[in-house]
């Protein structure tokens, strides 16, 4: 009986601590970092890491528990999490983070997406997104738009945090605008250069920096590279003289490595984190710093 009482008290204390602090569930680490930028003291739990493919996450028990305890959830949307987030929402039984409620924030609602899939989606199309490429956190200007919308939503949901959120937003916008100028200058030599990529993970980076992806290791979005497709990529690349091969850390590195070796481009293969690897208020800026520096190294 005493054990039971203690257990009950423990459960109630956990429940009470959830009620006090602002607990945020972030589907991807970039949105966790952005939330931390605006509300540094928030308890933020992140469903995925830069080493995981955000399309292919399982609705694990730990994630259900995290969403159950959240006051607010921030995700990419545009079907990026279609394979797992609806299951988490269904299992968590948390009214605050159901679609249509202000506690459920989808970043994709506030930016324009590139490359919407036009045509009929069939079982053979791969992981196509009718609404467009969902990896828009790789464009700092779109991150700025999301920050603004997120600040608005947080201020509306947590009025006592509004002054602080607004202040942090201005600071972030100032810093990011200054850095964008620096990054664009640094990446100027990359303009017009061609790259071989895997998936649309960095699609917004190419558009932002004026680079040209000429081939994709995946025969169709989300479909693993095949030997015959890689042969085609080599044939296609011969005429174009690509500046580099850029894949994300969560991709299987074997096809990229094989391609780099076959094309004698081993030193031009970049395996980059597709998002921030920690969730500090400044990690988004540090991530762009590194991304631009590493890409610029290709132009040398």
């Amino acid at each position, binding site marked *: 009986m005493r054990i039971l009482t203690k257990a009950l008290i423990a459960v109630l204390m956990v429940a009470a601590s959830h009620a006090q602090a602002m607990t945020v569930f972030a589907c991807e680490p970039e949105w966790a970092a952005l939330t931390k930028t605006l509300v540094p003291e928030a308890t933020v739990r992140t469903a995925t890491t830069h080493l995981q*493919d955000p399309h292919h996450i399982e*609705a694990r028990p*730990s994630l259900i528990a995290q969403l159950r305890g959240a006051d607010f959830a921030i995700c990419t949307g545009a079907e990026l999490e279609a394979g797992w987030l609806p299951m988490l929402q269904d299992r968590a039984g948390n009214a605050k983070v159901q679609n249509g409620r202000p506690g459920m924030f989808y970043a994709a609602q506030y930016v324009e997406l590139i490359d919407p899939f036009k045509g009929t989606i069939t079982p053979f199309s791969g992981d196509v997104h009718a609404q467009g490429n969902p990896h828009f956190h790789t464009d700092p200007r779109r991150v700025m738009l999301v920050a603004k919308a997120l600040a608005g939503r947080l201020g509306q949901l947590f009025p006592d945090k509004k002054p602080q959120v607004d202040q942090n937003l201005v600071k972030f916008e100032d810093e990011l605008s200054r850095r964008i100028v620096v990054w664009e200058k640094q990446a100027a030599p990359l303009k017009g250069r061609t790259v071989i990529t895997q998936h649309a993970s960095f699609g917004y980076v190419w558009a932002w920096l004026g680079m040209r992806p000429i081939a994709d290791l995946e025969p169709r979005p989300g479909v693993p590279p095949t030997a015959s497709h890689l042969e085609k990529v080599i044939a296609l690349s011969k005429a174009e003289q690509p500046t580099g091969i850029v894949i994300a850390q969560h991709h299987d590195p074997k096809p990229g490595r094989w391609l780099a070796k076959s094309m004698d481009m081993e030193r031009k293969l970049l395996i980059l984190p597709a998002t921030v690897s920690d969730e500090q208020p400044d990690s988004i800026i540090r991530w762009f710093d590194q991304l631009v520096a590493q890409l610029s190294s290709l132009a040398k």
Partner: protein
Amino acid sequence: MSKHSFLLLTLTSTALGAVAINAHAQATPPADRWQAGVVLDGASTSRGLELGARDKGVGLGHSDLLVRGAFNEHFSGEAILGFHTEDKKLEKHIENAWVQTRSLPYGLQVRAGRFASQIGYLNELHPHTDDFTERPLLYRGFLGGHWYDDGLRVNWTAPTPFYLRLGVETFTGKKLVPEATADSKSHVTTLNMKMGNDISKSSSWQWGLSHVNNRREAEVEVHDPAAEGHSHSHAASFSGKHMWVSDLVWKWAPDGNNRNQQLRLNWEYAQVSGINRYADSSMRHRASSLGAVWKFNPAWEVGVRTDWLRVNKPENHEGDIEFGKGRLKENAIMVAYKPTHMQTLRLQLTQQRATGANDEGEAIFANPARRSIQLQYVIGFGAHGAHSY
């Protein structure tokens, strides 16, 4: 007024109370759109399995047409029309038709209508996402493969740092035991618990424990020695008053990135007691299943599963109820190719061995497949919903 309808009334008023509280919530984006999808599961089988759902030859396995979405911010729903071929004929059945709350406080959820019970690991999952062409013997023997029924469910997800869900379900039980004795009560109640968490960045687990209180006693079949072949039953082949199910899942992927590689282990055990009024109180049905699947490449998986089932089968021999001990063992290995997430091509080899006979010396499991090869192709069109763990 029965206990049943009283419970329903209480829950309905709770749901309406929640509606009133949230009625002045601010204007927000629209709720989920409705989605529809179709999944087809075709297979070629060299030989039908004992207690199996697939006939010899080419046939359609568990396929479905699904519609799901949210009515408003308080209720969501789903309907599934299932279909498969049986003796070369197309069979259809309404498998799901339910409404569930989405705005109750304190982690509570209520579901009413027709739906799959959440006992065990596999039962609440769609069969077309299974790792093997047939469900484990445990499901085929005790739950008709996939037990769905008409009823009501209340779930509570605890505000704990790990996952903890407690659930209670009450069903009519007509899908589990269609032919019950005249004095049977018409309901089956389940109590179930699920808990789970991550062990590290790379691995996670889930454990479930369920109890089924079955108030429907199955009518004992009149023994017919001339009957042969596989009986296709969508109800429990072996039932009893109490069933316990324990299910454990453990999954591992490097850095938690299950896109490229993943190991999945699944163990389930079930025990049925209180077989019927003629049975000895110590008599049990028991079954167990242990499976492992290794995804070694984004598109390829291999798996192995071993199952056993031990039953005391009641038979009516001209008015005398006799019990025959039967044992069935099944081993399966499979390799699956998944070129996109909407397609699976699977090749499976299954072996069965049976022992045990009744007092007349007739085998309890007369047609075990010494060797059966199945080639299965699953393809989905349209929305197919998110997958559970």
